[in-house]
């Protein structure tokens, strides 16, 4: 499953990073505060011891001793007192120094050096333990910066305690407290110093930081675990389950599972709130999709069934019109050809031709108003009725009258039918025709051109009961041709909404006027197809050509 980094891992990482940053911040801030606070205490302590040592030294007029570079009787008493101070304090060094020349940094000498009992009892001779007045201070005992500060203090006669953090290679990190000692005349003589080792601070601070980090790590781990467990239960778990369920469902869909078999696994989100809403909605969607697909399947099947039925109906319709050509192979005096192309699967146009007797050919061309199944049903009915009345020997006008009354009877839908009917007496070439609202037929006499035969139009069939119809007679010479059609031909429209029209129809016929019926119809069809181009066929198109031969 290509999910990328899972939501669980991302959450864990984010939490750890965040806690890490938090811990670092705490550690740094804590360190600073602790360090500063501890330092302050140390400084206070140093100054206290320094103050005390200073008072003690003053008691013995130590300033004079330094100024005179002498170690009188009181020097040892002073030292003993200072030793006691060092003994009872937690300091590293307690000593005094002076500059030979207060304008120079070199020439720094010790004045006195206090020692603890322990240091005194180390077994070495006292002369090696103590440093006496005048002993030079070792090179590198102090950094130059430190020396400078001390020198200035003496030179300027600084009266207050001073503290310095210093670092030297020998002694490491030291906190240095110093106080200028004055002689009896008030001149600065030297410095008394107290030093404590603040490397201890560092180790104290390090211990603190280790504690903080350890505690923070444990807490972080605990929090991460608890948070993960919690979100897993209330957030990640449900989200993962919803993702899983919907993923499974979609895969089923994509792999073409039957809609009835599609299953959406319940993500089981118990908590209320957005996740429950999401889970419920996703489930609803899945169920909606399933039922839609099932419905679609049913509808499609139904549509296919109807399509099949319509196709069958189309076949029946097509077979009902005489469609075997040549239609009268035994006859050499005439030829006839016809086609019907419905706009939808079934249509309302029809044609018919049949021999009433050996000498009389009846031709019919009709158009039921409308298209599709309703028109098709009326079409079947009309064709049969007309055929029926015609073979009984009724005249064309009579056929129309009888047919009209019959169609009007059950005609709630107000369907009407346009119709042209003609009976040809082949021995004479006489045609008796009647027209119920149908297109003008097209006639060509031998050697001539196709022209519209503008005869009288009576009203359409199925409109009003009791209509009467007139007949029209005309003569066909040998070699003449008669072209019948429905309005689907002249009213065919192209994409520019232009109609084909009777003008173009005559053109197409006359392009090869003496051709046989099949070719004439093919020419007209091609002309219409070319004209219409990509536009959809709007109406049924039907054509019939009857040609008398020259024998």
């Amino acid at each position, binding site marked *: 499953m290509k999910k990328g980094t899972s939501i669980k891992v991302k959450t864990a990482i984010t939490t750890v990073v965040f806690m890490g940053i938090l811990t670092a911040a705490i550690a740094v801030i804590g360190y600073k505060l602790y360090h500063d606070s501890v330092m302050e205490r140390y400084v206070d302590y140093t100054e206290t011891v320094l103050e005390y040592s200073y008072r003690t030294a003053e008691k013995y007029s130590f300033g004079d001793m330094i100024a005179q570079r002498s170690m009188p009787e009181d020097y040892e008493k002073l030292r003993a007192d200072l030793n006691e101070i060092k003994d009872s304090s937690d300091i590293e060094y307690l000593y005094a120094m002076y500059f030979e020349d207060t304008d120079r940094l070199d020439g720094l000498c010790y004045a006195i050096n206090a020692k603890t009992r322990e240091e005194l009892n180390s077994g070495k001779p006292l002369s090696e333990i103590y440093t006496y007045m005048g002993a030079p201070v070792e090179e590198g005992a102090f950094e130059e910066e430190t020396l400078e500060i001390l020198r200035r203090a003496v030179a300027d006669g600084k009266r207050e305690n001073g503290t310095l953090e210093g670092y030297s290679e020998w002694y490491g990190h030291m906190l240095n407290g110093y106080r200028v000692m004055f002689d009896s005349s008030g001149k600065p003589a030297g410095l008394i110093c107290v030093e404590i080792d603040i490397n201890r601070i560092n180790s104290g601070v390090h211990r603190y930081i280790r504690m903080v980090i350890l505690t923070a790590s444990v807490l972080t781990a605990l929090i991460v675990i608890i948070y993960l467990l919690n979100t897993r239960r209330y957030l990640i778990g449900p989200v993962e389950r919803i993702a899983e369920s919907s993923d499974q469902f979609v895969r089923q869909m994509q792999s073409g599972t039957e809609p009835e078999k599609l299953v959406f696994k319940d993500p089981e989100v118990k908590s209320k709130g957005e996740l429950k809403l999401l889970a419920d909605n996703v489930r609803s969607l899945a169920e909606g999709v399933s039922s839609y697909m099932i419905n679609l399947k049913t509808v499609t099947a139904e549509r296919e069934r109807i399509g099949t039925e319509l196709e069958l109906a189309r076949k029946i319709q097509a077979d009902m019109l005489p469609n075997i050509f040549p239609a009268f192979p035994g006859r050499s005096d005439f030829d006839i050809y016809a086609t019907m192309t419905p706009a939808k699967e079934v249509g309302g146009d029809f044609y018919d031709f049949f021999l009433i007797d050996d000498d009389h050919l009846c031709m019919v061309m009709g158009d039921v108003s409308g298209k599709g199944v309703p028109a098709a049903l009326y079409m079947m009915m009309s064709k049969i009725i007309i055929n029926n009345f015609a073979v009984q020997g009724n005249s064309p006008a009579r056929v129309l009258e009888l047919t009209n009354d019959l169609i009007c009877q059950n005609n709630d839908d107000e369907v*009407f039918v*346009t119709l042209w009917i003609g009976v040809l007496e082949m021995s004479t070439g006489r045609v008796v025709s009647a027209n119920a609202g149908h297109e003008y037929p097209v006639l060509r006499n031998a050697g001539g051109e196709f022209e519209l035969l503008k005869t009288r*139009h*009576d*009203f359409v069939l199925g409109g*009003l009961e009791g209509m009467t119809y007139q007949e029209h007679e005309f003569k066909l010479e040998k070699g003449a041709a008669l072209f019948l059609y429905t309005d689907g031909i002249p009213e065919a429209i192209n994409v520019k909404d232009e109609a084909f029209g009777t003008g173009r129809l005559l053109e197409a016929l006359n392009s090869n006027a003496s051709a046989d019926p099949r070719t004439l119809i093919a020419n007209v069809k091609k002309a219409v197809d070319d004209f219409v181009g990509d536009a959809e066929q709007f109406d049924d198109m039907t054509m019939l050509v009857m040609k008398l031969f020259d024998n």
Partner: protein
Amino acid sequence: MEIEKNTSGKTMTMSLIGRIDTSASERLKDELLAGCETYNKVILDLGRTEYISSAGLRALLTAHKAMGRRGGISIVNVQEDVMEVFRVTGFCNILSFG
């Protein structure tokens, strides 16, 4: 197709503008039937009618039959194209042209 109506007394004149195709004829039939119920005389002005389909003819026929006893529908200002359709379908023998 647009329909403009003008009434004066018991007579209504309906002007049909545009093409009376299959979709418009349903509306035409309803309007005509409503008009026939309310008024004694209905005049159809086809001065601006470009085309009428067989569905349109059907609508006219229905209205004509409904109006039958009272004198039917009168058609005026028919354009040549539409007149040809009336001629070919034989409607010109049925409808009254004023």
